[in-house]
C-alpha cells in the first residue's frame, strides 16, 4: 500500500513495532533525527521509559519537529510511554517531563503500581472483530480522566493497591491520535496496528 510509518527509535521496544508492521506488510523507518521524519505517513511512539525519551527528544532536536508535525495532522499511535508523551496531563511524572500534550486525557505514570503489579488481560476493543486482544501491561500508565472528545475503545477492570476495583480506559482515540496503555507490539496479534493503519488509509 506504499505507506511508510516512522517508529521513534530513541529508546524502548521500537524493533517490536517495526516487526509487527512488517507482519502486516507495512514499511517502517526508525526515527532518531529530524530528517528521519521526512515523508512518513504516520508515527509510532513505542514503549520504554517516558522520562528518558523526553530528554532524548529534546537533545535530538526531534521534539519541536514532531510537535509541529502533530499540529499539521500527523497520524500518531502511542503505546504505554507513547501514550504518556501524547497526554495533555501527566500525574506522578517528573516536573520537567516534556510531552506533546495533545490528547485530552490525564494519565498517571505507573498507575497500576510497580513491576510486580504488571499484568496481562483479555480486552474487547471497539472496531476490532474476533476474539479478545491479549494485552500486556508493564508498569503501565492509568488513564484517570478523559475529555468528551475522546473515544474510549477499550477498558480494563483492575483491583488497585488501595483495594478499590475500578474500570479504566486503556485504548483511546481522538482524531488522528490513537493511544493504548499496554503493549500490542509484544504479542503476535497485529489487529491494533491494523486499526491504526486503516485510520490513515481511510483519509488518504
Amino acid at each position, binding site marked *: 500500500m506504499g505507506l511508510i510509518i516512522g517508529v521513534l527509535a530513541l529508546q524502548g521496544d521500537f524493533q517490536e513495532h517495526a516487526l509487527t508492521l512488517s507482519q502486516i506488510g507495512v514499511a517502517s523507518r526508525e526515527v*532518531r533525527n529530524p530528517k528521519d521524519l521526512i515523508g512518513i505517513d504516520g508515527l509510532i511512539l513505542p514503549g520504554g*521509559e517516558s*522520562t*528518558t525519551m523526553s530528554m*532524548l527528544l529534546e537533545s535530538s532536536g526531534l521534539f519541536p519537529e514532531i510537535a509541529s508535525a502533530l499540529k499539521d495532522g500527523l497520524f500518531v499511535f502511542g503505546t504505554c*510511554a507513547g501514550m504518556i508523551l501524547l497526554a495533555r496531563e501527566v500525574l506522578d511524572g517528573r516536573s520537567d517531563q516534556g510531552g506533546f500534550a495533545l490528547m485530552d486525557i490525564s494519565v498517571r505514570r505507573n498507575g497500576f503500581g*510497580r513491576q510486580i503489579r504488571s499484568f*496481562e488481560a483479555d480486552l474487547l476493543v471497539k472496531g476490532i472483530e474476533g476474539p479478545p486482544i491479549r494485552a500486556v501491561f508493564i508498569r503501565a500508565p492509568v488513564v484517570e480522566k478523559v475529555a468528551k472528545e475522546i473515544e474510549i475503545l477499550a477498558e480494563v477492570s483492575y483491583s488497585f493497591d488501595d483495594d478499590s476495583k475500578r474500570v479504566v480506559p486503556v485504548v483511546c482515540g481522538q482524531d488522528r491520535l490513537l493511544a493504548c496503555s499496554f503493549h500490542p507490539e509484544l504479542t503476535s496479534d497485529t489487529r491494533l496496528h491494523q486499526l491504526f493503519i486503516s485510520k490513515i488509509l481511510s483519509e488518504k
Partner: protein
Amino acid sequence: MDAQSNEFGTARVKRGLAEMLRGGVIMDVVNAGQAKIAEDAGAVAVMALERVPADIRRDGGVARMSDPALIEEIQATVTIPVMAKARIGHFGEAQILQALQVDYIDESEVLTPADEAFHIDKWSFDIPFVCGATNLGEALRRISEGACMIRSKGEAGTGNVVEAVRHLRSITSEIKKIILADPAELFGIAKNLQAPYELVSEIHRTHHLPVPLFCAGGLATPADAALVMQLGAEAVFVGSGIFKSGDPAKRARAIVEATTHYMDPTILLKVSRNLGEPMVGINADEVDVKMAERGW
C-alpha cells in the same frame, strides 16, 4: 472485562520490562542523591546498592544484599524502575527483595556467592531476574532457571571494557553458529554448551536469544557504550564508571546519548568532549578477584 482474567507474573510480563529498557542505560547508585542524578541524566533504571563494585573490590570481605531501607529511600526518590542485587543462589535475599517490590532482581556475581552449586529457581518468583553470563551456555542455563534478561558479565569495578567485549563476542558468535547449524547438529551443540536443547533450537528458529541481551562490567565512557551496542548489546549497565568519575552528571548524560546514537559518530564525538576525569580503572590481569568466574 472481568478482573478475574488479569494474570500477574507471567513470562511475558516479566520479560516485557526488559524489552522496555532496551536502548537505555541502567546505572548503579548508592544513595537517593545519586539516584536523582541518574534519573535526571536519562537512565532507564537504577541499580540500588550499598557499594559500587569498585568499592566492593577495594574493601574486600563478604558483599551481601543492600539494606532494604536504602533501597526504599531510592524507590521513593525516582519514578524509573529500581533494581537490586541478591547473591548467587540466595533465594532468601531474593524473597526479601520481592517483598520490597523492587522492579528487577540481579542475581549477581558482584556479591559474594551464597551457593556453590545452584542458582536461584527464578521461575518461582513474580519479580523478573537478570543474570550475568560469560558465554552462551551460561546464559541459556540462567534462562532455563527463569532469568528474563541476560547481561554479559564483563569484569565489574575495573573500568576496563575488555572483559565485557570478550563475553559479548563469545555469546553473539555462539548464537551465529547456532543460526547457521544444520538442525541435526543442534543436539551436539546443546550438549557442548551444557544447555537445554529446546533453547538452542529456539535460537536456531528465531535468530536471537530468548530474552534481551544487555552488557555490563567495566564500561566507563560513551565510546565504550557505543562499542558494545555495535557488538550486539541491547542496553548497557554502568556501575562504578559514572559515580567514580570527575563529573558524574555530565558523563551519565553522555553515556545515555551514546547508547541511543551508537551508530552516529558525529553525535558520539560531540558528547565525548570535556567529560572530566574518568574512573581510574584497573587492568584485567591486575585484578585479584575475578567476579566473572563466580556462577556456574
